[in-house]
């Protein structure tokens, strides 16, 4: 079992919904915590009557959305200063990434919710390139309902054998992340090629 997961599960059992909200929020902001595995276990706990399934889902969704909004808000407020200080607009790749994120904001925000740590990076980038707040919130919310519901649901059904599925979850998130990065790179490369044709 993940060395971070064991203490998380203890905190979850000790402090229950407060721990759930805190861990999911911090994970959404960017801390590398095994949140999906924790939700899988939480689904199992719910199946045993120790937690409420729907209450847990509601708290996970709200905490996830708030965490994502925090990352978005940080760069939305201080993004221009960061870009100036780091001279990011001098880097052609960043300019293309900015254009790509603006044109495909909805699909990027939605799909990166399923890609582990890439979700937090996307939140920061979305604020940096000023993706419309309404667009961000809408697609973030939809994906933030699907992802924890899937983890909780699978945990609920498999019960005590949830740990058999936790590694698969991590691998699937990693594959999603790599796939999304490659997709974005292809799109950027196509735009560059088009420009110079």
């Amino acid at each position, binding site marked *: 079992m993940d060395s971070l997961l064991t203490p998380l599960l203890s905190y979850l059992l000790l402090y229950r919904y407060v721990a759930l909200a805190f861990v999911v929020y911090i994970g959404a902001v960017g801390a590398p915590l095994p949140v999906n595995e924790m939700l899988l276990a939480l689904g199992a706990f719910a199946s045993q009557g120790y937690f409420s399934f729907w209450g847990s889902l509601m708290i996970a969704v709200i905490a996830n959305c708030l965490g994502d909004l925090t990352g978005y808000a940080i760069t939305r407020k201080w993004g221009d200063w960061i870009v100036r200080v780091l001279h990011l607009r001098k880097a052609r790749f960043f300019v293309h990434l900015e254009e790509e994120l603006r044109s495909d904001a909805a699909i990027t925000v939605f799909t990166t919710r399923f890609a582990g740590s890439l979700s937090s990076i996307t939140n920061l980038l979305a604020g940096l390139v000023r993706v419309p707040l309404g667009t961000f919130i809408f697609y973030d919310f939809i994906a933030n309902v699907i992802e924890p519901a899937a983890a909780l649901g699978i945990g609920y059904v498999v019960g005590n054998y949830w740990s058999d599925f936790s590694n698969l979850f991590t691998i699937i998130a990693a*594959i999603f992340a790599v796939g999304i990065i490659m997709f974005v790179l292809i799109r950027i490369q*196509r735009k560059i090629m088009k420009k110079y044709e």
Partner: protein
Amino acid sequence: MLNTMDPKKKRRPISYYIKIALIVLGIVLVVLFILLVRNYLMLRHANLISRRELSLSAFVQKHGPLGASEVGVIHSWMTFDYINRLFGIPQDYLENQLQISDSHYPNLTLGKYASENNIDTVVASHQVQNAILKYFNQPAL
């Protein structure tokens, strides 16, 4: 110096290789999904997941407590409160059996109990497992 490179041989763009990589990733994702389903079906076949739990009405019902044969699920990250609920045993049973004096009981993890008593977590888990087996009138491990 003449350029001896065949003009018909063009270097493939990077996007070509990225597309190949994406296809491979897609195949890997499908394989992983099949493994996930296979894992689940194996558990179903071994009767470790009840078919009843799959029905919509069963989804919202609480699942029953575990029995003596499932004491192996106990881990050091679990609290005594959770273990008591998991096995449907009285809250004070383990406290009395193991003579736990910590005031945080039952909101006390097995790991904390082990460190307070200067024993290994594996030993602590075995103590709890044997106490539960005794409750169910089963022989100790």
